[in-house]
């Protein structure tokens, strides 16, 4: 049978490959479905939560892998499980509460089918019927009707899950570069959950994914960053495109940078001279890892993990539809943080999030970009800053990570 839905735009990637991005990738519904199937609901590993969010046996909370709602549970033995929140009977969500503890089992409210915390079907009301009427057929096998279970793993207190039971293990998927960056802030030291901020951005998920691997914009759009020397084009960077769509960015902060003028800073209109804060605690990092580094990493497709000054946060990038993305921020510290460090994290929490001094412009600009992508699907974007090559670099003035991402994306999507 012929495909009746001819796309209005012919899907041909423009010339100059990785240095060009066609706008139709942000609005094509079919492509969106294929991305979810291939990446989020396919063989990739996604972030689902922190171990400290389900601290005790019987704890549970809801989360997402791609667009699919899942449950994180901790069973009686202390094992973590990631299950689809979807009853094997009629598909009703089994758990309606966002989180909780002290659960012995999971009972679907619709027909009270009961599952263990690891997802096995344990009880079906009227399994044998009401005499003389039969119940479920004699050959109904409870073992075949558990909640769908994802492959999951815990590393350094972070819970990851994959829909593919035969996916490569998490460490192989993440690779050494990402693991090194991840282990720096998740060395296995017990975590302290600080809380959540979430925002819904009316933009395709890839626009956010790109934004948070684009250091070029960060030095220009976020003038708060440059003004206080937290992240500036004249700083030293270590930018690494990595396999499987991942990347790491490290920059080395100098506490005196705010006073330094240079040829590079003169180019930045975004530095607001004469603007000082009354409380400099927000922009005064304490070098808690002893390396003078500000770091971020992206583990494709679900997450950016960041350490800006002493703000530690996970940005979970959740596609909701081709034109909508939820950005779910989880903030954490360490269980042994003293009161001073905790206060510092609270204060510096103002830097990022839906009201962040150095992030609020991101959701604003992406909300502006989506309608343009919708209205000009055949337009082509240019990502050539720093050249056309893909590779590591030591400057923030680069789009190498975007080129690396689209080289990966095209290969995976066959585009």
């Amino acid at each position, binding site marked *: 049978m012929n495909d009746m839905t001819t796309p209005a735009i012919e899907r041909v990637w423009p010339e100059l490959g990785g240095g060009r991005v066609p706008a139709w990738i942000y609005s094509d519904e079919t492509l969106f479905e294929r991305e979810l199937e291939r990446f989020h609901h396919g063989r990739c590993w996604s972030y689902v939560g922190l171990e400290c969010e389900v601290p005790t046996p019987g704890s549970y909370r809801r989360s997402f892998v791609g667009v699919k709602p899942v449950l994180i549970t901790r069973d009686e033995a202390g094992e973590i499980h990631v299950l689809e929140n979807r009853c094997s009977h009629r598909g009703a969500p089994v758990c309606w509460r966002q989180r909780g503890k002290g659960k012995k089992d999971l009972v679907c409210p619709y027909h009270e089918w009961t599952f263990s915390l690891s997802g096995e079907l344990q009880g079906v009301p009227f399994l044998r019927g009401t005499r003389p009427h039969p119940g479920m057929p004699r050959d109904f096998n409870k073992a075949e009707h558990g909640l769908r279970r994802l492959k999951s793993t815990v590393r350094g207190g972070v819970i990851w899950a994959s829909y593919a039971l035969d996916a490569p293990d998490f460490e192989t998927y993440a690779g050494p570069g990402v693991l090194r960056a991840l282990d720096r802030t998740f060395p296995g030291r017990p975590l302290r959950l600080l809380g959540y901020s979430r925002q819904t*951005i009316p933009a395709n998920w890839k626009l956010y994914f790109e934004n948070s691997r684009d250091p070029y914009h960060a030095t220009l759009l976020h003038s708060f960053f440059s003004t206080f020397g937290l992240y500036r084009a004249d700083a030293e960077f270590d930018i690494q495109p990595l396999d499987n769509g991942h990347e790491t960015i490290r920059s080395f902060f100098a506490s005196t940078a705010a006073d330094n003028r240079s040829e590079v800073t003169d180019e930045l209109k975004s530095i607001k001279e004469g*603007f000082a804060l*009354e409380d400099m605690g927000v922009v005064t990092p304490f070098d808690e890892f002893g390396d003078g580094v500000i770091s971020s990493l992206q583990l494709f497709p679900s997450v950016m993990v960041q350490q800006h000054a002493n703000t530690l946060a996970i940005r979970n990038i959740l596609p909701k539809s081709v034109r909508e993305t939820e950005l779910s921020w989880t903030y954490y510290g360490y269980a042994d943080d003293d009161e001073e460090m905790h206060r510092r994290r609270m204060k510096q929490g103002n830097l990022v999030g839906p009201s962040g001094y150095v992030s609020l412009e991101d*959701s604003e600009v992406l909300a*502006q970009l989506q309608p343009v992508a919708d209205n000009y699907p055949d337009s082509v974007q240019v990502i050539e800053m720093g050249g056309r090559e893909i590779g590591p670099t030591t400057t923030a003035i680069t789009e190498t990570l975007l080129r690396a991402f689209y080289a990966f994306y095209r290969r995976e999507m066959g585009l």
Partner: protein
Amino acid sequence: MAAPDRSNAELRAALRDFYEDYAASLDDLRLEDWAEFFTDDALYRVMGRETYDQDLTHSTIYCDGGAMIRDRAAALRRTAVYEPRLMRRFVSGVRVLEDSDDEIQAEANFMISEAMYDRPARLFLAGQYKDCIVRTEAGFRFKARTAVYDNYSIPITLILPV
């Protein structure tokens, strides 16, 4: 039907005026005036319901002291880049929980509408203020204000204080 609760009626009326003046300062983008509604040792927080209910501390906006409150106002003026918009704050259900000589513990509901210049207004945020108010020579001042929003997720960006 129970008779209306007239206890604290005068105080509640005065608080309503105070809350409405506060809301007007933000609706009118008089951010420097907004900062004046707080004592110099005030704690101002905007938090999600899920975080608040778990007794966690992260705040979407966190200002510990008048300096941080004034900094928030100044940073919005000097550095923030955002789509121009009109916002209106609606405050109702003012309740006095406790009134001692020193402090008033009070709560109120808020609703905020947001309109971009080329799009109709929509419900942006709804939630509850949890306040500690002191009487000063200049009138009421917030010693602590926590705005707990019920939204699971903030539509796009929370630019202005709540």
